[in-house]
């Protein structure tokens, strides 16, 4: 590993740096904390909060595993257990997996594409606050013993007005609203950044694979999340104002819920998985000292996966008695998605085969990812078959499958990615020894915990059960799983401790500790608040590997916040645009919106009255500011898109 401890390629002289840093700075203290629109600050918070929810979700899982270690364990009563597994799934899927991937994108995207900040910085800030508010609401409910208890999928009629008493399922439905708003806001921001704010010369064929994966993920979020918004809104209105969407007695349909939910739910797992694939590509290229083999194929695979993901959802409903011919279509589609995934696996291994791999911690996670995710993907191919699925659906076999693909396919890349970009974010290196120990514990703990679940599923153990009887013979494997879970937990603890200690006391990292080729390594570690003092010109996929000189463009305004916009496919510079200053309105709007969302759990009129303060906040948010075009130097070259 070559430690590039010298000065970063792009660095301003101290005077200019100080002036530009002042322009882009976040104010000090609590006010600054609440008003910042700095994508890096928001990204860091988002990542840390996501990891906190990861730990909380993991503790819930530890409780579940402890209960299931022995048959008829009386440790946790069924009501609490049902809340715990519902909280575990809801936390992991809505409060950890998607948000943390978006969080990594929020921090990294501007740096990877050569921009000073994200598009729509206030929307970004709002995305974080509304996400946090949702998480707080859910955990407050858990502490008060009114957490949702119908699973993370909350099927009607179990979650409906007749069978789920109190406010539990309403809290679940509103958590969806909070997190989906957050996710959609971040997705719009990420997509616009990647489409319009790339450095000159970064044509679509030169966009880093992580940015590609985030672009496609953002499109998927935009199309998929409205489905779960509808599913949960219909649920809440069934419960609160007496609609009959899922009430069979009045013509409604429990299957409508499943269709709407899974139309979101299946793309959701690819929304979680695609960013991981992007991360694997970035790490592999750097640690193998070679561009990823088959870039066009990789991009095509990401696109294909993104599209196909929307055509599979019925495979979650194979046991519901839908017409068989329709089911067979979804079998074919579900198996087809193995093709882009398989092709990508080949490309990564080919990159390792042809490159010169060094097995630093991030690369260990890539190897772990390949071994684990492929196993999960293959059990997924099994599940795609309707007849086989009717046996293993809703058993621990499925639990094993989705943990293999989600942990193998998303969490391992994420852990590798956090370790990989940690030096860029903090300026310090994590310990390699601790990193390897953490990986070993996590990898072995994970497999010990989840592999036996394939077996108990085949042996007949359904999922979502708070206990099982001793005569079934499932006790041994369950005990093994629990032991594995504890080892996994220990590994996560070592991993996090490594980062916490390194953040304070790790050795200085320099701008490019791993010798990477992307633009994020062209600026200092941590980056200056404005990311890049001058705008790089991109001439290849790994700009920093091209030679001894990095061409840059100067001239962006240094007295106001200004960003560069370029064309969508060729990244030709087209115009400049102002970027917002810190603002309290994203935070205040979150407070008003939270009142609206939480209030409407209890009374539908909150939707009406609560929208008044929200409207006022949005108006304040968009209150006209001094015009950017007036404040900066301009030529009389005309405004693109104007008519005479």
């Amino acid at each position, binding site marked *: 590993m070559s430690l590039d401890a010298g000065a970063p390629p792009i660095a301003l002289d101290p005077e200019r740096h100080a002036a530009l840093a002042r322009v882009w700075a976040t104010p000090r203290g609590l006010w600054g904390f609440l008003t910042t629109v700095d994508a890096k600050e928001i990204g860091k918070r988002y990542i840390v909060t996501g990891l906190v929810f990861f730990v909380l979700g993991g503790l819930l899982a530890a409780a579940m595993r402890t209960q299931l270690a022995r048959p008829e364990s009386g440790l946790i009563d*069924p*009501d609490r257990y*049902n809340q715990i597994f519902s909280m575990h799934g809801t936390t992991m899927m809505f409060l950890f997996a998607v948000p943390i991937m978006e969080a990594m994108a929020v921090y990294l995207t501007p740096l990877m594409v050569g921009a000073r900040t994200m598009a729509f910085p206030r929307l970004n800030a709002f995305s974080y606050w509304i996400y946090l508010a949702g998480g707080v609401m859910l955990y407050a409910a858990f502490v008060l013993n009114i957490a949702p208890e119908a699973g993370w999928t909350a*099927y009607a*009629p*179990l979650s409906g007005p*007749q*069978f789920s008493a109190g406010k539990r399922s309403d809290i679940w439905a509103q958590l969806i609203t909070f997190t989906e708003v957050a996710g959609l806001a971040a997705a719009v921001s990420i997509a616009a950044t990647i489409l319009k704010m790339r450095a000159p010369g970064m044509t679509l064929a030169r966009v880093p694979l992580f940015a590609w994966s985030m672009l496609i993920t953002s499109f998927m979020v935009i199309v998929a999340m409205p489905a779960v918004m509808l599913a949960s809104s219909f649920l809440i209105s069934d419960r609160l104002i007496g609609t009959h969407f899922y009430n069979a007695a009045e013509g409604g*349909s*429990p*299957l409508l819920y499943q269709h709407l939910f899974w139309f979101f739910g299946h793309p959701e797992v690819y929304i979680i998985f695609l960013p991981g694939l992007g991360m694997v590509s970035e790490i592999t290229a750097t640690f193998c000292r*070679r*561009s990823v083999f*088959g870039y066009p194929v990789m991009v095509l695979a990401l696109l294909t996966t993104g599209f196909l993901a929307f055509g599979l959802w019925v495979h979650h409903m194979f*046991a*519901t*008695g839908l017409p068989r011919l329709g089911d*067979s279509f979804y*079998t074919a589609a579900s198996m087809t998605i*193995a*093709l882009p995934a*398989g*092709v990508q*696996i*080949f490309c990564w*291994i*080919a990159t*390792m*085969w*042809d490159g*010169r*791999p*060094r097995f630093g911690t991030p690369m260990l996670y890539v*190897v772990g990812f*390949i*071994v684990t995710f*492929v196993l999960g993907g*293959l059990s997924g*191919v*099994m599940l795609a*078959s*309707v*007849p*086989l699925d*009717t*046996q*293993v659906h*809703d058993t621990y076999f499925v639990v094993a499958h989705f943990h293999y693909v989600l942990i193998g396919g998303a969490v391992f890349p994420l852990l590798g990615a956090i370790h990989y970009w940690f030096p860029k974010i903090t300026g310090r290196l994590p310990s390699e020894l601790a990193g390897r120990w953490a990986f070993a514990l996590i990898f072995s703990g994970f497999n010990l915990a989840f*592999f036996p679940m*394939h*077996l108990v599923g*085949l*042996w*007949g153990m*359904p999922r979502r*059960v708070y206990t099982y*009887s001793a005569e079934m013979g499932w006790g041994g494997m369950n005990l093994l799983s629990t032991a594995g879970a504890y080892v996994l937990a220990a590994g996560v603890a070592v991993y996090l401790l490594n980062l916490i200690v390194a953040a304070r006391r790790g050795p200085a990292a320099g701008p490019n500790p791993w010798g990477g*080729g992307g633009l994020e390594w062209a600026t200092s570690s941590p980056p200056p608040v404005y990311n890049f003092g001058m705008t790089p010109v991109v001439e290849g996929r*790994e700009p920093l*590997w091209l030679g001894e000189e990095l061409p840059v463009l100067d001239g962006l305004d240094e007295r106001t916040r200004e960003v560069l916009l370029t064309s969508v496919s060729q990244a030709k510079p087209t115009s400049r645009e102002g970027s917002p200053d810190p603002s309290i309105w994203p935070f205040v709007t979150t407070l008003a919106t939270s009142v609206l969302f939480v209030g409407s759990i209890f009374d539908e009129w909150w939707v009406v009255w609560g929208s008044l303060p929200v409207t006022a906040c949005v108006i304040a948010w968009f209150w006209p500011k001094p015009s950017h075009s007036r404040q900066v130097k301009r030529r009389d070259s005309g405004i693109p898109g104007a008519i005479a």
Partner: protein
Amino acid sequence: MIRPALRMASLSVAALALCGCRGVQTMLDPAGDQARQIDVIWRLMLWVCGAMYLLVLVFLAWALWRARRPPLAAPATGPTPAEPGLERGLAGWAGLIVAGLIVLVTASFLIDRSLAELRPHPLRLKVTAHQWWWQVEYEGARPDQLLTTANQVVLPVGRSAVVELRADDVIHSFWIPNLAGKVDLIPGRTNYVALTPRRTGVFRGQCAEFCGLQHAKMAFDVQVVDPAAFDAWRGRQLAAAAPPVEAQAALGKQTFESKGCVMCHRIQGSEASATVGPDLTHLMSRRHIAAGARPNTRGDLAAWIADPQGTKPGTPMPRVALSSEELNAVVAYLETLK
């Protein structure tokens, strides 16, 4: 390196474990046509997917082995000499995946079609799922030959059965892994499952769709018997319960009919005729009580009646206040319901 080896070791253990598996609730021990067909697809999948996994691991191991080569001065950005070969490898790999998927999709489709095939003159059952028990009815030639039981399914070997599936509260799932795949019971919808058992024996089914507090304890006994034994069972089930002769049992009947029990349960031949809860007319012919939660013994019966919440917290069966004398009498009465 170590990791692929660990993977291999685990797979071998798994393979060993898989073979040695007989059980009353496992898909790996098929006892009927449908489960056997599914077993064919399972084995095919295991081999094909196993082979693909092996190929990935071998390629990975090779790449890791080559990592021992000396490092380059500068990273490789442009095309390398190995690329044409890798491109051919990619094309071959993609072709292999496509071929494999075509085989699996075709096999899956063919097997799926055959699952719906039935032998002629199937037996007809109707199962209605409730939170957290199974109502089971067998159609007869005449309306008064409708057999009602609970938490048990008895089937004649070699004859197909079609089970009509309904739910009256939330979504449940009817699953007897040794015989067939699961089918959900969805309020407002009627589903069907075909069962063609080929081996006599005792099996177990369990609800496989999360249905609330006691989803974990919603199982049912399954027995596959000779056709003659089935007809005999059916005859006994259709008969009403004879009034008890012995004193304690008679007292128990009286207690049963005067306390809360009659609000939910039916015992043909007595005054209890409610259908809210399971039909108890032939309770003693069942191997378990409370939907598989407890074995059907005197002590378990007493414990269940004395404190239903203790066995199944959240069950709709209330605690009926009974003195220990009344409790023993009721249990004695129930024990006459053979």
